[in-house]
């Protein structure tokens, strides 16, 4: 996986296993973005919908605050769908995914949202971030850590060229 600067943003170069892995993650993100906040696991709701901030608000303001954050995520679902389609229809190897400068911040948020989601579900803290994911016996937890680290590399690459 590599990211290179382009005239209007950057290009992400992915080999087949990375492309498949990222496609799978984007599909999961799309599913989560489509869920109502009350359908999400409580720990995710806290992270994505900032329970701490909204705790002091009255019912109406809390509803508005959460709806606004949900609308924002829904807005990024379109970008996810577009990139997912490109990744799934790719024939060249390696595949080049063009990321326009205007889309870069949204894509970073999408990637980061999935890291936060997985960390919340599997209660990943400082210590777990240092764990060797390949040695984790629980399959779901191992996959979550792998995705968190994979997306961290992607984030760093994009931030460097963005």
């Amino acid at each position: 996986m590599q990211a290179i600067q382009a005239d209007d943003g950057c290009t992400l170069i992915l080999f087949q296993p990375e492309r498949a892995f990222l496609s799978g993650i984007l599909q999961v993100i799309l599913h989560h973005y489509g869920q109502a906040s009350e359908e999400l696991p409580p720990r995710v709701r806290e992270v994505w919908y900032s329970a701490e901030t909204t705790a002091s608000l009255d019912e109406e303001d809390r509803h508005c605050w959460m709806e606004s954050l949900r609308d924002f995520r829904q807005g990024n679902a379109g970008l996810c769908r577009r990139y997912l389609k490109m990744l799934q229809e790719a024939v060249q190897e390696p595949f080049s995914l063009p990321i326009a400068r205007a889309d870069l911040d949204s894509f970073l948020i999408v990637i980061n949202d999935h890291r936060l989601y997985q960390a919340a579900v599997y209660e990943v803290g400082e210590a777990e971030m240092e764990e060797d994911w390949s040695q984790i016996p629980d399959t779901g937890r191992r996959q979550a850590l792998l995705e968190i680290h994979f997306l961290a590399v992607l984030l760093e690459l994009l931030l460097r060229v963005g």
Partner: protein
Amino acid sequence: MALDRGWLVVVWNDPVNLMSYVVHVFRLVLGFDEAKARRHMLEVHQEGKSCVARENRERAEFFCQLLQQHGLKTTLQREA
């Protein structure tokens, strides 16, 4: 009449957000330069939190929402 600027936007440490990402968000959302963004990011990382803005309620909520959209753990506090 002096504007009410008594609301603080506080960003809290979390184990997942990358330091480089936090710097990026501070620059983009709050308009910090690289040095200021890094200083606040390090404060979050080392002290557990950093007050990144002091504004009237409306603007504080605006910044708080933007930071939360970017996945940063952010709260609003009424200035003591």
